[in-house]
């Protein structure tokens, strides 16, 4: 299929909007995909990215967003709002040749800090990294620093209910937002206060109910110090019990992460070692960064059942420690140290063996580098993705064993647990596999997702804790919301009567 030729009429209409736009093929192609694995798989096999957007609109302020939405509603043009394009689920993904991408990266004005109220107001197009950089200069932080923050935007955070590794201290984005402005599908401007209320019905809408233009978020002083501690446990249950007690006993860890044996190896590898011969840990042999790893990874991953068994049986012998729990407490030096020592005491009481601060510090130092592995996996012809589910503490062990059991015959799987809340936590199940052709790889990829989400739904877990739904998980939207779907559909018809806002994302078409 060749890219849609732009009609002169569309070009004239866009010009009349008097805002920056682009109808060049390269620009349209660049914004037609987000970071969903399907794009990378297709790229590896040289499959063309089709369809691509008909045009890209780049509004510079709220008024231009409203004008763009009104134009789209009047002409029935599907609009795909796009922030940093870092989503993993195909929320900012063009699947219709008549779609117009609304690129929101230009909404960076209006940065304002209210030190007394401890809030920052920022345009939806400001990236998380830039926001933190500007706040840091004032000695402040939102504490919301997801791994995608270098490119992900404030509006994207709100649209996907995102979460960062320090959620135990500051919460998810819905806990931080104090006010947000957004434009509905008819171009109407809304301003709602949070947390709670009507805003909670729009947060996480992935651009299907409205387009975020501005947000006021809570900030706090940069912590003076982060004290850390680590321990290993002989079982998943013991590790989860320690996590649970830490949060239920009123401690608010800056981070709290439990890794299964395979994931622990990955978490503790330093990127420098990984970039070389693959590191001294057994997992290094599979490192996609090494030449051997790149050549052999797809072969190895096609034998996923054997690999899973091998790792489960040999890893504990090679590396005595099994389930690794890393924790950090932030604050003034004495307070942070006190928090860390209390967490360490709970870990020990739950059967953990103290490893001191070094493992946690190593993760802290290299936490962003771990995400560089993903593109390298795709470059080898294999695929990798992550299922982020959450459920209550009592359901978690059953959920994890069910998902692992379903996936183990089809993909290499490892798990870690983060985002610990009073009533439960999220499980992050990373899986990798490979096929023999584009079709075979995509079939395997979707099959693995289908198995994982079916198992999650069967165990009454939420199908997404912070990655969102996009096009990847939309068929499970109804299983998550049950009878509320009718209310939510009504909400959608009310806010977007023309049905132009990101059709195909979040809700089944």
């Amino acid at each position, binding site marked *: 299929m060749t890219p849609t030729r732009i009609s002169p009429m569309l070009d004239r209409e866009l010009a009349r909007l008097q805002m920056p736009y682009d109808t060049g093929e390269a620009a349209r192609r660049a914004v037609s995909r987000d970071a969903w694995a399907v794009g990378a798989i297709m790229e590896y096999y040289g499959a063309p990215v089709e369809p691509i957007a008909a045009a890209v609109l780049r509004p510079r302020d709220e008024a231009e967003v409203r004008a763009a939405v009104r134009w789209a509603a009047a002409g029935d043009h599907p609009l795909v709002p796009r922030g940093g394009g870092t989503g993993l689920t195909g929320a900012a993904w063009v699947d219709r040749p008549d779609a117009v991408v609304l690129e929101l990266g230009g909404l960076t004005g209006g940065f304002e800090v209210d030190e007394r*109220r401890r809030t920052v107001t920022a345009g939806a197009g400001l990236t998380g990294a830039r926001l933190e950089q500007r706040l840091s200069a004032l000695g402040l932080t939102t504490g919301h620093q997801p791994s995608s923050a270098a490119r992900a935007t404030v509006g994207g955070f709100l649209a996907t209910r995102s979460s960062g590794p320090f959620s135990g201290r500051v919460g*998810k984005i819905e806990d931080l937002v104090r006010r947000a402005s957004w434009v509905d599908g008819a171009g109407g401007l809304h301003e709602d206060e949070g947390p709670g209320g009507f805003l909670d019905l729009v947060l*996480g809408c992935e651009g299907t109910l409205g387009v975020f233009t501005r947000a006021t978020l809570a900030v706090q002083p940069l912590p003076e110090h982060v004290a850390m501690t680590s321990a290993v446990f002989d079982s998943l249950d013991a590790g989860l019990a320690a996590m649970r007690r830490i949060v239920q006993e009123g401690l608010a860890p800056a981070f709290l992460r439990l890794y299964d044996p395979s994931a622990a190896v990955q978490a503790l590898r330093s990127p420098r070692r990984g970039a070389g011969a693959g590191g001294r840990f057994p997992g290094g042999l599979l490192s996609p960064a090494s030449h051997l790893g790149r050549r052999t990874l797809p072969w190895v991953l096609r034998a996923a059942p054997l690999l899973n068994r091998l790792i489960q049986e040999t890893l504990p012998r090679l590396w005595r420690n099994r389930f690794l729990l890393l924790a950090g407490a*932030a604050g003034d030096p004495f307070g942070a140290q006190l928090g860390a*020592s209390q967490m360490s005491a709970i870990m020990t009481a739950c059967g953990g063996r103290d490893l001191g601060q070094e493992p946690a510090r190593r993760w802290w130092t290299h936490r962003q580098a771990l995400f560089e592995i993903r593109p390298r996996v795709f470059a080898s012809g294999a695929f990798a993705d992550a299922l982020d589910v959450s459920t209550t503490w009592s359901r978690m062990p059953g959920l994890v064993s069910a998902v692992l059991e379903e996936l183990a015959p089809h993909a290499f799987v490892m798990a870690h647990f983060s985002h610990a809340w009073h009533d439960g936590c999220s499980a992050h199940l990373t899986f990798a596999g490979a096929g023999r052709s584009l079709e075979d790889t995509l079939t395997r990829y979707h099959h693995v997702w289908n198995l994982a989400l079916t198992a999650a739904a069967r165990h009454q877990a939420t199908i997404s804790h912070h990655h969102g739904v996009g096009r990847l998980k939309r068929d499970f939207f109804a299983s998550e919301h049950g009878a509320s779907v009718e209310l939510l559909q009504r909400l959608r018809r009310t806010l977007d009567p023309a049905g132009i806002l990101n059709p195909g994302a979040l809700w089944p078409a």
Partner: protein
Amino acid sequence: MARLSAEAFLLRAREICGAEHVSWPDPSAALRVRPSTTAQVASLVRAARETGCRVCVQGRDDQAQAAPAAGIVELELRRADQVIALDATGAWVSVQAGLTPAALEARLAHEGFTLRCHTAGHGHRTLAEVLALPLPGLHGPAPFRRVIAVTAVWADGTTLRTRVSPRQAVGPDPRAFLVGGHGACCVVTEVCLAVFPASVPSGFETLAFPDLSCALDAALRLAGTAPPLSPVEQALAPDGDRWLLHLWFRGPAACVAVGRDRAAHGPGEGHGEARGEAPARAFWRPFSAPPGAEVPLSPRPLSIEALAGLELAPGEFISGFTPAGAVHFALPGAPAAPVLLGESADPRVRALFGV
């Protein structure tokens, strides 16, 4: 017309709940129905729509509510008072929303848990009513959201049931919206709430200040303290010519001790005079008043600027401090008009009902 509608509804309500749970002593008064299950509430709301009756939830508003007019159906949820499940591991309890916090606290005490909240005189109202209000302890700091799941009957009679899960990113999250809209958008019939192990230590401290300005400065400073050394709740109340700041800490004993010590004697100005733990412990003691003896206070969120000029009557207090402001819990004023189901003040919500 209204009377005909009410009479038609009366017959349906008797079929749904049983005649003994429907009362209409005087045709010039509201018709009161006492359902005990979600299914009954849903049937009643549908019946009301079909017969053209307007519905209000009894005692929904925080202020004393004016008596509903003739022909209005008043739903009273107090019969829906069962504990459905308690998950000791997950520290949550699932209950019918007609239960009162006082009754739930008594039942939780047997299981070693507590609600950990101050209901500002609302301890003997239903949980559905109380959860719709901003009350100290119920709506805590950012990482903590008290309501884990909700079952509610929407104004058109549809039953909505959210999943029991800590957090999600699967589109809109209606939990907070439904709980806050109890009475106006929906009738909350069941809730799943986070509860706290009673074994976790609590600590109290009271600081006395000569004026409101100093006390507010101290409260706002403490609200910005990093956990786990920050108080979980603070309340500021007048006491003669002094202002007392009642602090409530919760967490490991060492953290509680350091938090108390820092609040009373830490570095910086304006710490107030430490009065020990007794006054704060008495203030935060849950549900000490018998039914009928409590005066439900009306919560009014106020900015920092508005707080500075505030005058408090005896019995009133300020709590729920954030760096941006706090909540003034005031003695009730004039009775408010009843809030009618499906007649939200927000036009966007009314549009959801097709109004």
